[in-house]
């Protein structure tokens, strides 16, 4: 609770401010859309949180989003695969990607930054080659398949809980249980703090690190899938660009430390919500211009990080 207090307050402040300043912010439609976007981006945030907790980083998330977001419709529409087969393929490929990252990082002792920087280039390049730079989407077909990304559980006539958000909640719940209630979660947190100690306690730290990269890539793939189901339009050259940075920013906002060993799933979800809320605010508040988006998100992130650090240092000094 303590760790997410700051970001929770930030969320509430921005929420209330937008409710006053923005037009129709509290309408059911807008609230639903906020949940939907939090759902989509939140999956990436949770994925990268696992990697960050081990003290690693994954810069390839946006490219995995691109690979899956373009690859699945390409398989379905251009290669006549069934949606199920395409999804299976996405699962297998993203798992292999995670295993490969983990292998290079634990066995060859390469640095996560370097490995995933290469991956960022490679997967996007591969997708562009595969799709031959053509836009991908399902056209008007596969409504049922696409409903995973577009439908909502109706609550009122205007407001429903979008499936992507439901999926996020399920994933977040599993992730939370995994991280806080199971031995593997405990191992991850321990090794993120002190890898040597974890190893000397008989934990197979390499395997856990690999697992974290697998989780990250698979959640990036799930995110990519839902993005394309939801938006139905993807261009290999720019789909998912910079999404890794948004995901990392959300995780940092949510209390993950890039030094490892620290992070809460709830915080990441709230961090994602703050980012999405900010973007929504910029569109809904008249005097905020849309080209200020980066500026505002960057400043909020920086202020949050500085505040967090100052508070931490103060607490440390008081002890």
């Amino acid at each position: 609770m303590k760790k997410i207090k700051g970001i929770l307050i930030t969320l509430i402040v921005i929420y209330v401010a937008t409710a006053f300043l923005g037009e129709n912010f509290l309408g059911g439609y807008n609230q639903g859309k906020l949940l939907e976007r939090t759902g989509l981006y939140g999956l990436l945030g949770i994925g990268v949180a696992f990697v960050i907790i081990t003290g690693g980083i994954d810069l390839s998330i946006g490219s995995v989003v691109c690979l899956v977001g373009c690859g699945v419709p390409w398989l379905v529409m251009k290669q006549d695969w069934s949606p199920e087969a395409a999804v299976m393929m996405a699962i297998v490929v993203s798992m292999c990607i995670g295993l490969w990252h983990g292998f290079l990082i634990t066995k060859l002792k390469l640095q996560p930054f370097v490995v995933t920087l290469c991956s960022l280039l490679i997967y996007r390049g591969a997708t562009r080659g595969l799709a031959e730079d053509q836009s991908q989407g399902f056209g008007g077909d596969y409504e049922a398949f696409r409903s995973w990304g577009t439908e909502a559980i109706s609550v009122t006539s205007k407001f429903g809980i979008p499936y992507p958000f439901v999926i996020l909640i399920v994933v977040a719940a599993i992730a939370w249980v995994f991280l806080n209630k199971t031995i593997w979660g405990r191992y991850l947190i321990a090794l993120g703090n002190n890898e040597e100690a974890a190893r000397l306690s008989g934990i197979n730290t390499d395997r856990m690190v690999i697992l974290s990269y697998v989780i990250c890539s698979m959640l990036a793939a799930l995110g990519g899938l839902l993005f394309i189901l939801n938006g139905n339009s993807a261009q290999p050259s720019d789909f998912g660009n910079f999404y890794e940075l948004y995901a990392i920013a959300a995780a940092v906002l949510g209390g993950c430390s890039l030094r490892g060993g620290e992070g809460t799933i709830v915080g990441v979800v709230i961090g994602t919500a703050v980012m999405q809320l900010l973007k929504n605010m910029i569109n809904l508040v008249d005097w905020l211009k849309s080209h200020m988006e980066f500026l505002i998100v960057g400043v909020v992130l920086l202020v949050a990080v500085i505040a967090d650090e100052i508070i931490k240092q103060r607490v440390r000094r008081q002890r």
Partner: protein
Amino acid sequence: TAALGAFAFSGCGEKDGGKESYALVTTGVASFWDICKKGGEDAGEELGVEVEVLMPSSGDDQRSKLEDLLAKGVDGISVAAIDPVNQAGLYDEVAEESILITMDTDAPTSKRQVYVGMDNYDAGWMCGELVKEAIPEGGEVVLFIGRLEQDNAKRRRQGVIDCLLDRGKDPSRFDAPGQSQIGEKYTVLATLTDQFDRAKGKANVEDMLTKHEGVAAMVGLFAYNPPLILEALKQAGRIGEVKVVGFDEDEVTLQAIKDGTVHGTVVQDPYEYGNRSIRVLHALVNGDTSVIPENKIIDIPARQIRKDNLETFWTDLNFKLGK
């Protein structure tokens, strides 16, 4: 003489088979350009020349792609300008070393020999007319576009606005994107950009649906914008209620016109841009300057596509694309 000079330069770039080689350079990567590519390649096949299509990722990338083409030594290049004013110098450089024409977006101050395409301002104006048809009783309109930094986008948007506000035609006008333009019947509330991030493009539509509940029409000015508008409207259950006018010929847009969910779209003729570019270049290289009209503009007019003329257009397009 220009042709001769270019020929001399390309002499060192002669390929093994002695085939002439041409290049099309686009503004970016998009399905719109795929059609253009097809047009160019078809012309190439027919004329027995080589055609290469390069799709740069940014203005800076376009420059290095052009330079690499010069290094390689192609006989002629047709380029879609990104920033006609500032890039004129670059185009001049290319024009000196090879034969240069422009397509889709002109760079009139440069030494390009001819422009193949239409005026984006006029096309925007045509788009505005479609909006007027879609909501004859007037109302609020929101525009969506990838970005406003490139010239074609700026002019296209201005055309729509000027038409809706019943101003006189003036392509050099520029209204700041953040402000609403209020006319007698029509109000252009805002222009939203997404920097080609599709998820953001869709979120922009959704946020405008939230902010302006009474919005009467939405206009998507880049090829991928109308499908995103449709998707957002569909998910909001407001299809039909908010009129949609598009630009370009994305399949989803065309299908929606057929279904009646999009009022109409303004199509350029990217196939023809590509195809004609190669033919003109071929003619110029072979010393035939008669292909250049007086005003140095080969007009490939934009067309308004509505439900009534959709079928013929679509069939023709599919035929050209070999589908």
